[in-house]
């Protein structure tokens, strides 16, 4: 039985991601994300030695951590976790000190050039409150993203997590992300010829 309290999360099945970047574009359009910031993006890596080379796509966004470093460090309590487990920024309270941006181990925050405050993925709360999916989920052509209530064992996301092995980014940091990955080559070694 689902609990009354919701905990929104997302599963990204990288087997289905083709790197089309529709998530990045739709997010930018939906949320008015400025040119030099990203709420949602796709990292690409190439692995292997020619001719056995593979390109991996790893879509990324705010991990909406249960133990969110950005919330811990915000000196004015502008960053907070709402009742549904979504990490948000109160843009009227934010002083733009940038500490949360630096403190996010996933580089998921940026300084909104127009508003001069920290900005990040909101899981499109404005859409979700109307019963819609986040823009990146709605527009994913490979249906690589599943969004829903992690507290509801019957939800599609909970079922997907049960059936597929999932990972999170940087589990060593103890942030307890609510974004999960299926078959992702994550927690990889650093770039430029890492082995």
């Amino acid at each position: 039985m689902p609990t009354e309290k919701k905990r929104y999360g997302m599963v990204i099945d990288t087997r289905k991601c083709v790197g089309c970047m529709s998530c990045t574009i739709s997010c930018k359009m939906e949320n008015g994300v400025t040119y030099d910031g990203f709420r949602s993006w796709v990292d690409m890596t190439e692995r292997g030695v020619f001719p056995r080379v593979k390109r991996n796509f790893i879509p990324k966004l705010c991990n909406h951590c249960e133990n969110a470093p950005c919330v811990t460090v915000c000196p004015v309590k502008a960053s907070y976790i709402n009742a549904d487990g979504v990490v948000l920024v109160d843009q009227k309270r934010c002083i733009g000190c940038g500490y949360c941006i630096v403190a996010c181990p996933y580089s998921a925050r940026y300084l909104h050039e127009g508003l001069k405050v920290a900005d990040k993925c909101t899981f499109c709360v404005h859409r979700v409150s109307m019963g819609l999916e986040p823009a990146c989920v709605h527009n994913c052509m490979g249906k690589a993203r599943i969004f829903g209530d992690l507290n509801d064992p019957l939800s599609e996301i909970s079922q997907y997590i049960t059936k597929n092995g999932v990972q999170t980014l940087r589990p060593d940091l103890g942030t307890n992300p609510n974004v999960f990955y299926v078959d992702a080559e994550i927690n990889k070694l650093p770039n430029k010829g890492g082995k």
Partner: protein
Amino acid sequence: MNTQDVYVVVNASPWNYLVPLYIFFKGLSVGALCISAVYTVFRSERFKTLAFPAAITSLLTFIPVPFLLLADLHQPLRFWHLLVNFNPTSVISWGTWLIILYPLCLLWYIARLGLSQGISIPILKGVQESASTSQGTFGLGLRGLSILTLSLALLADLYTAFLLGVVKGKVLWNSALLPGYFLTSAVVTGAALVLIVYLNKKPEEKTVRTLVRIIQGALALEIFFAISQWITLGATSLQGQKALELLWKDPVYLIGDIFLGILVPLVLLNKPSLNKKPVLMIGALLVILGGLLLRFSIVGVGIQAAGLWN
């Protein structure tokens, strides 16, 4: 198997040159106060003539600090949010109050110190008058007030090291060495600035020698911290090794801080004598430059190194 990043997004850090400058000036102020406290807390008579100029240096170097902090906020008019929304888990919240209380206490300390040395400060006349009574200093003597001011100063300096140190996933910053490293650097830069100020007054040979010895000791301690950092970064994890690589590749750190800011001054400040005033001045200036560059490299490389891993 080879791995090559083809396209990786790292949202830019909003921190720019203002953050290391802020840490640097705060360190200068704290370091100069430490030199003043050698007389007022530890009662070293040799530093009696130095105590007041060091305290004034401490105050003057603190002046840019609040402006740098405000300038670093992208919403500076909302700075008051810091005062009404205290977050106990945020190091900045604690730091905000420390950098408010520290200069207030410093003003009080300067007034009281001036009073004890027969120096009248027109701007602080009212404070000096109240400081002349025990009620005006809440029963604190000069030493008690010095200990209070020094404690606040040390905390105000240390909080920036913790501010960086508690950030998850920043391997260069996540070190128990960082507070000690920053504090040592603060003391050495503050002492170097006090040395410059003092050399331009009527310096006493013995006092200069002792001051230079403090600087040399602190520089040696900085070398210890630097080498300890290299060993622990290089030996513990691949992330640490990559961060160390970046640090060593950074000319600001290796040439600026280590070579020009520590090694060259150690040579120049060797066997100090008033006959070598210009050499001492150049040595002290290089120490200050080194302290500034250390802040730039630790902040900059710390952010850059973490970008490899998210």
